[in-house]
């Protein structure tokens, strides 16, 4: 069987998700045995437009990027969105809540007209996306799981239950009991509740589960002392592109 040809691309992002791929360390070498990586700008000079699977990191933040993404979509058999920026719009959507002209002026002053920008959006707002690997950054094991599934010809099984499940299994004290608040009850699991485990709280970086009970989450946050503004802020941090945050 011929090895599948794999390419990596990035748009507006911190490139941390591609770095997570490199961070597979020894396992990356195993991946390299199973697939042919034909494009990975962050790590290699080789480049090819002939690939089966495209992993695409980053959000779309300007009209001119749409063409490049559409080109990738046209070449790729399978397109996988890599990380929150690509799957949700992620952190980059925070700017959507300011007037775009104001944003440009704020950062680039009277030279603002040189800098094209429009409200940030996830890949699937521009082209169809086959699979999503959520997270900011992505979880290395989940990336490996998706690669393995694609190699075996199966659809990767991406969780649709909230972070609380993994958080309880990790035997964490719920942060609400510690006087903090948490997006875990509406956020898609798969990270092993890593933030709570590390003493923080769930920021919501993996996006919402398919059917989040946003009303109840708002109520829970409100009973724990968050103002309406803060609650919106919590939803907007990562899922600003989704309806519940608007």
């Amino acid at each position, binding site marked *: 069987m011929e090895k599948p040809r794999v390419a990596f691309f990035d748009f507006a992002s911190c490139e941390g998700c591609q770095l997570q791929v490199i961070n597979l360390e020894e*396992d990356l070498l*195993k*991946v390299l045995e*199973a697939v042919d990586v034909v494009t990975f700008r962050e790590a290699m000079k080789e480049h090819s437009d002939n690939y089966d699977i495209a992993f695409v990191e980053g959000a779309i933040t300007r009209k001119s990027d749409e063409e490049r993404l559409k080109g990738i979509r046209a070449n790729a058999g399978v397109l996988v969105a890599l990380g929150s920026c690509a799957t949700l719009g992620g952190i980059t959507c925070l700017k959507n809540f300011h007037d775009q002209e104001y944003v440009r002026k704020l950062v680039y002053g009277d030279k603002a007209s040189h800098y094209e920008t429009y409200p940030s959006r996830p890949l699937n707002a521009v082209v169809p996306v086959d699979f999503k690997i959520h997270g900011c950054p992505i979880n290395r094991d989940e990336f*490996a*799981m998706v*690669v*393995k599934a694609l*190699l*075996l010809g199966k659809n990767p*099984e991406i969780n*649709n*239950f*909230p972070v*609380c*499940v993994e958080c*309880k*299994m990790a*035997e964490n*004290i*719920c942060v*609400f*009991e*510690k006087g903090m608040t948490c997006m*875990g*009850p*509406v956020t898609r699991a798969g990270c092993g509740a890593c933030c709570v485990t590390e003493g923080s709280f769930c920021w919501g970086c993996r996006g919402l*589960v*398919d*059917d989040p*009970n946003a*009303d*109840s*989450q708002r*109520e*829970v946050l409100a009973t724990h002392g968050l103002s309406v503004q803060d609650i919106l802020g919590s939803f907007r941090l990562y899922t600003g592109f989704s309806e519940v945050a608007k």
Partner: protein
Amino acid sequence: MELQLIEKSDHDLFVQNLINNYQVEGVKPKDGSFIYGSIKAPEELCLDFDCTLISPKKYFLPPKEALLQFALTPDSEITPLIENDPFILFGVHPYDIKAINQMDRIFARGVPDPHYLQRREAALVIGVDPTAVAPRSFWADMGASTVSEGFDLMFTDMGEHFIVEIGTNRGRNLLEEHAKLKPATTDDARERVRIRSRISHICKKRGFAFPKRDIPKLLEHSWNNFLWEEQASKCLSCGTCNIVCPTCYCFDVEDHVDLDLAHGERIRRWDGCLLQDFAAVATGENFRETRASRYRHRFFRKGHYLFEILDDLACVGCGRCASGCLPDIADPVNLFNKLKEG
């Protein structure tokens, strides 16, 4: 009933002896709560906890467990993985023992499940009577203040010493080999009854406003009660109530493959009936599509369905679900009392 006595001053020695000879798992503090974990020194072991975050079911039905190991090549052997390393589980409250007893029956009934049963067999269970009651516990009302089986030894903290009830021969041997014992007198036995009823009395502050044996009947007439909808509208479908519950045992099965794509494992992991996709099938059909139907299912399972199988309610009153549920709708006491009110 056979009772023995261990002086508090001799207790550390006993625990140390166990540590020297066995893998010992017990209760440890964590961030102001308690969890079960491995005990490496006597002072780590905590016996005066109110309730742990997750019940000891994790030792018999681990959150994630490999069932089979296989190679992807045709004809290769498939090897079941069955864990039966002996270990001591030190510090299990009677309500959790009651839950373990229920699980034992579930996993032995019909087609027995050796993955569970062997682990269970490998464990020596040392129970301990509660010295404190968690805010949402109601085990006393669930008839789980004491248990008569399911433990090898049962400790009761009597202040200066522990009284140890011997549950099995395995327990007796362990005790005789590793502890400095004194015989317990009938006065000690009487005192133990008193201490137990005192703590049980504290726990009784929470409970049902009606006899709990009426619960199955109550549910039979409550299928269409408005409460399911009303309460479940707040449900986050977070599955917390399932995960923490000592009597919940549903699981999912998945194949995991190594990166070499040549070897793999079939694993099972905890699942929960409150989670959205629990009853969803490949066609897209979801047999419990609404939050309310999933929410109701859990209470029916605890109070009715499993009753038909176990002849007992599948809730032992630990209150873990109640304290873990953020919108506070998972508490059996609140829900059943509300249902009763109508």
